[in-house]
């Protein structure tokens, strides 16, 4: 299915958020996730099903003021 990952459309095979992160090469990375603007805590990722057209945000620590 096609989903938007950090503003870019991508084809993914996985169905749940944890598996999508692994598919994106982000398994084990320190990131926070949101789907369609709603925060998805890390423990909820394996049961968070993604659907065609979902907007996924994957955020990580960055420099800030």
């Amino acid at each position, binding site marked *: 299915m096609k989903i938007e990952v*950090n503003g870019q459309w991508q084809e993914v095979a996985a169905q749940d958020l944890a598996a999508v992160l692994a598919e994106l090469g*982000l398994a084990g990375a320190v990131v*926070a*996730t949101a789907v369609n603007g*709603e*925060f998805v*805590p890390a423990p909820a990722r394996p049961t968070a099903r993604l659907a065609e057209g979902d907007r996924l945000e994957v955020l990580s*620590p*960055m420099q800030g*003021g």
Partner: protein
Amino acid sequence: MLKLYEVELGSRVLLGTARYPSPAILMEAVKASGTQLVTVSLRREAAGERAGQGFWSLIRDLGVRVLPNTAACHSVKEAVTTAHMAREVFGTSWVKLEVIGEDDTLQPDVFALVEAARILAREGFEVFPYTTEDLVVAERLLEAGCRVLMPWGSPIGCGRGLNNPFGLKALRARFPAVPMVIDAGIGVPSHAAQSLELGFDAVLINTAVSQAVDPVRMAAAFARAVAAGREAYLAGPMEPRDMAVPSTPVIGKAFLG
């Protein structure tokens, strides 16, 4: 000692981590500033780059506390969601709450700020709101559950120092027991010293250090200025006057005319 939400910090410098020439210079600047609290943010992780992972390991190596921000958020929902995500990633309930209301000045949307602060405080966050010197807004933020205030000196990144010292003095005087950090607009160490002289508890600086020709040296300069400003505040500065007062005694002056 500076105390923010029951945590004692050995330095009154809070340092931002953005826009340094290199990670190595950022690390050296953090050390030179003596800070024990640095601000950080959350941004999109580019696939394959893992830049965020490297940055996070660098910060952890420094052994300082982190204060995640909600920079560039323009709505209550965006700011609250960002705070939730930051709490999970950084493992802290501290959040520097920014809700931007105007793009040219990056002035906070104080109405949304109060609303977001109330939601987050209720959820157990310890909120550091980026606000203005407005007394009524300050009162609302305190009612909402904030126990620290971060009034701006002047717009973020402009380096103009304290735009409204009179208003800031009034804010300081109105809430003497609330820890206050001057956040934004500090350009040179004398601005930081002035902030501490006025009785503010700390300053948060970023661009003034990271964009200096020699950030590490500037960080050290800020550390000294902040220490001097604090000492001056504790020493009790004299009141300014409009007319001259001779400092050398007049009595006993010879008549030589």
